[in-house]
């Protein structure tokens, strides 16, 4: 008899039963059983959900993401060591996009760093990298006087995204959300729960909030349903991973394992503005300095199909002559822009906007062009 390795059981968020009860189509994502889209009878379907977020409001269960808390006298120093952005710029209540880097200057993960208190930081990380990131953070902050806690299972995280997101959430909380700027957080009473963390963050390229409530099933279901009821006047739609992906793609937000990974560095990924080289030390800094001096060879660009066809993850990108020059990291129809778009790595020389390329689709080269990114940018509200 051969020995069989035990397969890890698929993980479920506290809202799993709720999604199934709602009739969501479920899919396995990085070891998690997650909704990909909801039924049309609930206003769902990837395109309808995507449109709802762009024009009104949609809600997502994003509890699969992870949470690492660092607290103590040297918590800032610890964060500064492992994170490429400058956390010393954060006021209490402020957040920033950043990344944890390997010594090679490549990505362990991307992360949102929140400063919750004088010496307290919360890193929100990807679902697929929960354990890797926690080990990484713990192992590389041992010399700093701070605690490192894995709070990933403690929270049900719900994203409320879209132009009406703030209006919806305001109905449920006593916190003054109009005072919370984008990428800032607040705490308040929410659905009768005290001291709930609410951040004006998200992964949809829209305005909106992410809330963190206790992860027990009863509380999670109650809050989810109260949000749906409060959102009826705004035509709220429950949204799954399908729309989550098309929304972030339109906004050129990277996805770990696609635009960023352990074989791609910060310069190639075009995330320079989140990487503060003026910080004298952080993991990956030395390699990044060398890489910059050596010259960056390939770069992430946006593509738009010019001929009929949909570029998808992993498809080859060819130059005009049919030679392979790169590959699609993420590609899909863009439901709001009504185009077929993709992100891909190409050599620097072929990265200029307007460069004509081809994407190999089932053996045929189909025309595409390099376009400016992000493909979509939301209108900022005035006042």
């Amino acid at each position, binding site marked *: 008899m051969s020995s069989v390795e035990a397969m890890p059981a698929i993980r479920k968020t506290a809202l799993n039963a709720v999604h199934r009860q709602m009739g969501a*189509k479920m899919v396995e994502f990085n070891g998690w059983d997650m909704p*990909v*889209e909801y039924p049309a009878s609930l206003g769902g*379907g*990837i*395109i309808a959900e995507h449109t709802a977020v762009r024009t009104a409001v949609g809600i997502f269960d994003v509890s699969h993401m992870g949470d690492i808390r660092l607290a103590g006298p040297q918590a800032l120093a610890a964060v500064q060591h492992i994170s490429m952005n400058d956390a010393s710029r954060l006021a209490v209540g402020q957040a920033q996009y950043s990344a944890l880097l390997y010594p090679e200057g490549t990505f362990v993960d991307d992360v949102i760093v929140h400063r919750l208190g004088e010496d307290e930081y919360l890193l929100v990380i990807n679902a697929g990298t929960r354990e890797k990131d926690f080990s990484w953070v713990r192992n590389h902050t041992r010399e700093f006087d701070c605690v490192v806690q894995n709070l990933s299972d403690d929270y049900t995280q719900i994203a409320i995204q879209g132009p009406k997101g703030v209006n919806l959430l305001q109905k449920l909380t006593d916190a003054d959300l109009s005072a919370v700027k984008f990428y800032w957080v607040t705490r308040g009473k929410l659905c009768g729960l005290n001291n709930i963390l609410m951040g004006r963050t998200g992964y949809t390229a829209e305005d909106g909030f992410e809330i963190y409530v206790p992860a027990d099933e009863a509380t999670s279901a109650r809050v989810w349903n109260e949000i749906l009821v409060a959102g009826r006047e705004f035509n709220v739609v429950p949204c799954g991973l*399908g729309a989550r*992906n*098309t929304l972030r793609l339109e906004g050129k937000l990277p996805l770990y394992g696609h635009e960023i990974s352990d074989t791609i560095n910060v310069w190639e990924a075009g995330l320079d503005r989140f990487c503060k080289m003026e910080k004298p030390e952080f993991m990956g800094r030395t390699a990044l300095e060398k890489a910059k001096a050596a010259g960056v060879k390939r770069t992430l660009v946006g593509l738009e199909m010019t001929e*009929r*066809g*949909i570029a*998808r993850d992993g498809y080859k990108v060819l130059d005009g002559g049919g030679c392979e020059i790169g590959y699609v990291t993420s590609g*899909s*129809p863009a*439901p709001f822009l009504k185009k077929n778009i993709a992100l891909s790595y190409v050599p620097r020389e072929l990265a200029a906007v307007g460069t004509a390329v081809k994407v190999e689709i*089932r053996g045929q080269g189909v025309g595409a062009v390099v376009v400016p990114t992000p493909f979509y940018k939301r209108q900022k509200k005035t006042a």
Partner: protein
Amino acid sequence: MAYPTDRKYTKEHEWIEVNGTTGTVGITDYAQQSLGDIVFVETPKVGAELTAGKTFGTVESVKAVSDLFAPASGTVTEVNAELATSPEKVNQNAHGSWMLKLTLKNPSELDRLFSAAEYEKFVAEEAGH
């Protein structure tokens, strides 16, 4: 649901409606429901030769690419151009959205296909898994 009895069905969820030696082909309501929003349909050119059971094109949803399998062998005589601009019609009315017409080479191949009642049973079993 009750599937139209005026046609036959494949395991891969295509339907074929036959008039004399002309077959009209599309995908079933079960297929469009499983796929979700259809954004792209790729069909062969007029004149192409199809072989029963072999792929003849693709139908794409937002997330995935699915092969289309020929219910019968024959030569393509017409292709529904509307699906190039309005693929969502397949979601709206799968049984009323034809993809192509072909002249059947070997009508006895149809005997192998499901009747409406057999297909309905097949789908109920598949959906139950």
